């Protein structure tokens, strides 16, 4: 399964990539909302981990654009503490779950388990 990581912070992308590739996921990256929309259209990933606060296009705007392109898109928002209002907005726009930064690896994996379809063996 392919996960698209969207975060303007290279360090955060590196951490998530390390965690997810270690769990057998294929990982693609984008560093802002605009790039995320383009990468989503090109790659059709199974899930998107989307930071909220980014320059260029915010995570909320990118979520709306991705959901417009693909109403079934699975997007998990990554927020900082204190961004409750934006998390609610994201859920209203179709985000499937949210993770609060700084997060523990288990929280990321449990959100993905909840959102991703169960693979049949």
């Amino acid at each position, binding site marked *: 399964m392919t996960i698209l990581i969207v975060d303007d912070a290279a360090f955060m992308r590196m951490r998530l990539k390390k965690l997810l590739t270690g769990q057998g996921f294929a990982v693609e990256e984008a560093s802002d909302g605009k790039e995320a929309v383009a990468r989503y259209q090109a790659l059709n990933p199974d899930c998107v981990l989307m930071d909220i606060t980014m320059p260029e296009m915010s995570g909320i705007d990118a979520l709306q654009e991705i959901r417009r392109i693909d109403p079934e898109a699975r997007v998990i928002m990554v927020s900082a503490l*204190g961004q409750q209002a934006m998390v609610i907005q994201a859920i209203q726009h179709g985000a499937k779950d949210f993770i609060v930064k700084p997060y*523990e690896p288990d929280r990321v994996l449990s959100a993905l388990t909840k959102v991703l379809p169960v693979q049949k063996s």
Partner: protein
Amino acid sequence: MEANVEQVMSIWGKICGPGLEEASRALSRMTGLSFTMEDKAVSEVEWKDILDKFDARHAAELYAVNLGATGLIPTRIILIFSPENSRRLVSAMMGEDVPLPLDDVGLSALGEVGNVVGTAFLNVFANIFGEVFEPTVPQVRQGQGSSVFPVLPARQKVLVTEALFRVTGETLWGEIMIAPLTKGAK
């Protein structure tokens, strides 16, 4: 709740300890490392004195993380590290020795420290005032002396905390500056 800059400064001064404790927990969660931070000295100074102090250090090379906060009173939060302390901090976070100057990933790691510390302080502050504060995207600057700082009014009051960071066998110093902006400042 109404508040003026003097009240805000007074409260910031009192929450340095709890703010750093919350930041330590958050950084530990984020990195899986054992982070602790302590405030060793807290002082209130004017911005012009900070500029003088840093420029008097023979314009030493510095790394600065700048972020803002919106809310009750707009605030600038600035973290300052020497290059060597930045390198040691980022190396600990990345689990490998990184060289100087820091590359994009290293600068981003330092930015995340600023983000976590700033957000932790804002959360403690928000709990007191019952109001949500939102941090802005951190900007990391590298340069000499005061060139890494934002432009603030000379008479702007700033709370300076000398903080001791301990992480996986490394002990290093940083300075955290908090400036609740007076009217007209950006």
